[in-house]
Structures are given as C-alpha cells and as structure tokens.
C-alpha cells in the first residue's frame, strides 16, 4: 500500500471520527481526541528540541560561546524549583521576568499603534468645507457618537442613571450592531472551512482511493448503531462518566 493511499484513508477516517462528535460523544471521537492530543504534544516536543534547544541554545553556546544564553537557561530551569517547596519562590522570578517583559513591550506600542492611531482615525469633519452636511459627514458624526457612547458604557466609577444610562444604552446598541455584523460576516469564514473539508472528503471518495470516505462513513454508522444498542442494554451510569 503506498503512503498516499494510506494517508488518504487515515485522513478520511480521522475526519469522520471527529465529526461523529456532532452526533454524540462516542469511542470514535474519544480515540481521535486522544490521538490528536498525543500527536500534537509530540510534534511540539520535537520542534522544541530541534529549534529551541539545539538551534537557539546548544549551538550558539557551544560553537559561538554565546554565554549570555546561560541566563535564560537558568531562568527556564528555575521553573522546576516549583517541585521543591523551599525553593519554589525562585520560579516566581521567571514569572516576573516574562510578565514584566510583556508589560514593558506593550505600553509604548499600544499607545502609539492602538491608542493614538485610533483617535486619529476617528476625528473627521462633520460638515464639509462648504458647511454642507453630506453623507460622509453623517458617517463621521455617527462614528463619533458611537465611540463616545461606547466609552461612556465603559465608565466604571459612575452610576449608570439618567443621562449616563441613556448614552451608555446607545453605546450598547452600537456594540450589538457590531457584534451582529461580525457574527454574520464570520458565518462565511466558518462555512469555508467546511467546504475545505468537503473537498477533501469528496477527493477521498474517488475510485483512486477505493471510495475511502464512503466506505468509512458506512462502517462508522454501522458500528455506532451497534454501540447504541449495546449501551441501551448496559446500566447508563457506567458509560456516562
């Protein structure tokens, strides 16, 4: 059996195993789930060994004598002090390093690229140069109203009563339009994924693959049907742990 054919059967089978979860939790899905877990962690470990340990640490240390890399190595090793109660606090230094790094890198970048850019993008004239009120101006006005009212919704130290309440409600309406719109927009993306999978399944149901998808689909359905009958006879408690 050549590897392409084998790969096709495996891919078709695993695809159907995972889809079987849509019917209900069952041994096919559980097998797929645990296999995926093991494979994915294994893949990650191999990557870490070759690209992080060997390329980033071992090679520069041994060949380039880049001894500064001992510091991150020690920081990494210190994570294991957690297993010794007396030394556990050392691992916090590594946590602090990572957390501090995230905080430091984020501050100027968020302010510059997020905050100021955002403000710059929002401010636009609400009347045209000839003091007319065109559609573009209407849109800029609407954006200003939307942004401000959403910001009012996020005021935490003010009680949302009276005018504040009204404005924050307007803000929520804007938020709901945005979320509804992005939900609607995303439907397309998710259906595309299913289309992608369907292309593959259709491919694997061709004669070159000996109708893999179809054969496997029928088999899975049959086994699931028998499994159902088998469960019904058993005590329910035993299978729903």
């Amino acid at each position, binding site marked *: 059996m050549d*590897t392409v054919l*084998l790969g096709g059967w495996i891919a078709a089978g695993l*695809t159907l195993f995972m*889809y079987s979860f*849509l019917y209900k939790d069952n041994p096919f899905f*559980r097998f797929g789930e*645990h*296999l*995926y877990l*093991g494979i994915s*962690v*294994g*893949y990650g470990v*191999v990557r*870490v*060994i*070759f*690209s*992080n340990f060997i390329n980033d640490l071992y090679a520069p240390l041994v060949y380039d004598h880049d001894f500064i*890399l001992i510091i*991150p190595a020690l*920081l*990494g090793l210190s994570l*294991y002090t*957690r297993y010794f109660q007396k030394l556990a606090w050392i691992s*916090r230094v590594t*946590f602090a*390093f*990572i*957390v501090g*790094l995230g*905080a*430091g890198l984020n*501050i*100027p970048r*968020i*302010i510059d690229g*997020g*905050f100021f850019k955002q403000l710059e*993008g929002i401010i636009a004239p609400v009347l045209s140069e000839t003091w007319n009120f065109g559609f573009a101006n209407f*849109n800029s006005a*609407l954006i200003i109203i939307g*942004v401000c009212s*959403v910001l009012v*919704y996020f005021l935490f130290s003010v009680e949302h009563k009276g005018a504040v309440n009204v404005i924050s409600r307007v803000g929520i309406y*804007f*938020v*709901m*339009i*945005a*979320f*509804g*719109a992005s*939900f609607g*927009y995303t*439907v397309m993306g998710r*259906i595309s994924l*299913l289309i*992608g*999978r369907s292309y593959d399944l259709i491919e694997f149901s061709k004669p070159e693959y000996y109708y893999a998808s179809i054969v496997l689909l029928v088999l899975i359905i049959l086994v699931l049907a028998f499994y159902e009958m088998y469960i019904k006879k058993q005590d329910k408690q035993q299978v729903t742990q």
Partner: protein
Amino acid sequence: MTASLKKWLPIAVAFATGVFFAIQYYIPRPFTDELLSDLSVWFRIISAFAMGLGIISLFHLHYYKIKRQAPAWGFSIVVFLSLFGMIAVGLWCLGVEKNTDTGKMTAYGWLYKSLQSPLQSTMFSILAFYIASAAFRAFRAKTREATILLIAALIVMFGRAPMGEWLWQQAVPTFSVFGVTLPPTIGQLTGWIMKVPNMAAQGGISLGICLGSIAMSLKIIFGIERAYMGGSK
C-alpha cells in the same frame, strides 16, 4: 532576609524588565533593536524549558488514569502511544519534515500531514455547524439589544452571500432621486454597517482595551498587580 528577598526580588525583576523594554522604544540605536531580537531567543529558550512542565503534568494525569484503571483508561494508552511514537519518529528524522533536496516528505512530515493536519482542520470546521446552531438558538428578538444583534447579523449574512445580492437585485425595485439610486444594494448596506456603526463600536471597545491594558501594564511594573506570583500578599 530571605523573606524580604522572596517578596521583593520578583517585583524588582518585573519592574526592571518592564521599565527597560518600555524605554527601549525611545532609543533609536541598533543595539536596542538587537537586544529586542536577542530577547525573543531568550523567550524561546525559557518556553522550551517550560514545555517539560507540560509533559510532566500530562504524564502524571494519564499515568494515574492507567494505574488506577480509571474509567476509559484505555484512551490514556492511546495518548502515550501517539505521544512517544511521534517523539521517536521526530527524533529519528532529526525534526525535518521535508527533505529540501529531494523534495520528499520524511516519516515525521508524513505523520503531521496525514494525522495532525486533518484532525486540526476537522476540529476547526466543526465551527460551521456550531455557528449555525448558536445562531438558531440565540438569535431571538427577546430584547431590544437582541433584536439589533439579530437584524445586523441577518443583513450582513444576506449581503455577503452572492445569492443574497442577486435576490435583492431581483426583488427590490430601484428609483433615482437627485441622481442617487435608492435604495442601496444589500452589498452597499453591508459595507456601510461594517464601515460605520461597526467601526464606531470597535473603536470604542479598543480604546477601552488600550486604557485597561496600559493600566494593567503600569500596575505590573509598579508592583500593584501581583496575582501572577500567587496572591496579593
């Protein structure tokens, strides 16, 4: 001495790294950029060590399931077999997925392509089903907010599908006022929703997030937020 060291060392480290890398942004010198590049290597080295913690945890969990013969412990064997199998094959292939000279896939690459890749794509594509059932269940015009959500979603779904655009063209007559064709097409309406009200809300929310996350960063640097060290004490 150790008690205060235990308390202050992590805070000092967070402060020093935080301030340093915030200031780095303002120093247009090659060495600060190089430092930033080196740092990403540091980061990868630390996370490489951290991977071991994950493996220990995973091993522990499934080892005890097998040992105690917990329900469905057989699946834990599947985890071990696939985990160690993948690691063994990966080591044997020296972590290479595809031989760049011959263009042939190695066993490690083959395992990724025929096992992990379809599993990944399939789990991802299950979202197509979930998004439909979530829409069906949640989109009820129960409150004003829910109604707005629902209407916006319906318009965009209609407007982004070529069939929706086509149906709209067939069903809605257009007329012209002062040279402007009315009503707008469903595609234009969708575009307007995305570019105006959507943008306003996105802008407001992201400004809020910016402020929240800057405040959080400052709290970390000044040692006010210490939850990551286990509790505030």
